[in-house]
């Protein structure tokens, strides 16, 4: 059983830009997949196509048994509730506390009135606190996000995704705003959640060494096409050339 299955998927933006071309890609439960490629290769578009922030224009696209090519708004919300998304720029509400931001990950699981009033069930609050502890922020729960460092903010963002109890985590260059040491911390956290909770993880990375170190499988993209798919050890010089067009020496 696959959690994600793309066959011949194309994505063309309204302005005519062909962002994804004939994507054939499937992911098994529990995998840790790294997507690599140069800027503009289509990595972010691929992740956004998976949670249908951007709609594919043709092909067969199934995620968690939902047909992305044909789904209503109710189904879309159900699908997204089962997918955690981690952003490059964290995308947190900066004037709220770390705990408030993490609880946002539970909104899809709470009744409308309760959620609008911020009256989360005690079990959700406990879950959010536990996840914040797991990412090493137990002393910062009541801190406003804008008072936290970049690394701490990204950990809040990871906690927000994890608290959804998602089956898939998508991470779009989650270390792009962090220094190398923090990048390792963030990736290690994602790996821990992947292994301990079985959350299938697909992460866009621009640092090749990190992709080789952490991923169980690597997907290489160039100009909207998948030009490589395989294990980190299979990433030969020729494969790298096909991904980076000779940019790697």
């Amino acid at each position, binding site marked *: 059983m696959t959690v994600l299955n793309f066959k011949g998927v194309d994505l063309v933006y309204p302005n005519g830009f062909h962002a994804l071309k004939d994507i054939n890609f499937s992911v098994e439960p529990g995998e840790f997949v790294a997507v690599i490629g140069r800027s503009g290769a289509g990595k972010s578009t691929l992740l956004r196509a998976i949670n249908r922030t951007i709609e594919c224009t043709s092909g067969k696209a199934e995620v968690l048994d939902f047909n992305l090519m044909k789904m209503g708004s109710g189904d879309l919300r159900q699908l997204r509730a089962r997918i955690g998304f981690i952003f490059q720029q964290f*995308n947190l509400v900066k004037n709220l506390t770390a705990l408030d931001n993490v609880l946002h990950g539970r909104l899809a699981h709470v009744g409308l009135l309760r959620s609008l009033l911020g009256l989360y069930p005690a079990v959700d609050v406990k879950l959010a606190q536990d996840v914040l502890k797991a990412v090493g922020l137990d002393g910062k729960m009541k801190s406003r996000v804008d008072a936290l460092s970049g690394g701490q903010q990204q950990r809040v963002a990871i906690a927000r995704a994890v608290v959804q109890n998602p089956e898939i985590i998508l991470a779009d260059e989650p270390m792009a705003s962090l220094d190398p040491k923090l990048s390792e911390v963030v990736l290690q956290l994602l790996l821990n959640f992947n292994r301990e909770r079985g959350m299938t993880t697909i992460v866009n990375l621009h640092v090749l060494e990190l992709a080789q170190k952490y991923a169980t499988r690597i997907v290489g993209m160039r100009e909207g096409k998948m030009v490589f798919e395989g294990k980190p050890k299979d990433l030969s010089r020729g494969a790298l050339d096909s991904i980076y067009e000779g940019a790697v020496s």
Partner: protein
Amino acid sequence: MASVFSRNKSKWFFAAVFVVLFVLSSRAVEVNLFKLYENSGRLVDYIGRMWPPNFKILPKVFEQTLQTIQLAFVSTVIAAILSVPFGFLGASNVMKTKVEKWIASATRFSLNANRAIDAIIVATFFVSAVGLGPFAGVLALSIHSVGMLGKMFFETVEGVDKGPVEALESSGASRLQVLRWAILPQALPYFASHTLLRFELNIRGAVVLGIVGAGGIGFLVTEYSRLFQYQNLSMVLVTILALVMGIDAVSGYTRRRLL
């Protein structure tokens, strides 16, 4: 010289049009500096009679000042509450479908129309319903303030960071949940700041409405002018100056702390 003129021909043309318009308009509104100079003695005499301000009427002035502040405060709170829905209904990043865009356009048009009509004109309508007094002033200032606050609110909503909106939408949150938890927390400090700015303006507005019958300190300006009690009038003017400057200072400080 000729080449300088030909190079800047359009600038010279607009400058000439501007000067002609200014002269014609000044004549139409009877601007006459010579007349002002000729009668400046009367002005000096008028100001002279205002000195010194009569401090004995301070208790009465304070009482009316408090009513002006209360009028502005109540009007501003009502306006802010009414403006919040307009802030969302007019925002293009909230109103996305075809029907919603039409609603947003209608909202913006209503707010523009509201701003075009001054509070004093709005007051004349309410005086016909509730008579002279502070209540007509509250109604006029509240309704008039919605035009400006509604516009500032929807511009604030349009300016919020889109990142949290994308994050919450990606987690399966509903539109109302996104409004409540991604947009409102970001917009709220700005809503408060704009409301304080409007309170500053409403203090001035309440003074002016008082002059035309809404009560408060503005009413004292009318009363003492009609009775030629110049020293009382100067006490009122000094109080208005202190009130406006004081409110501006407190409001400005609070707004800086909010943002």
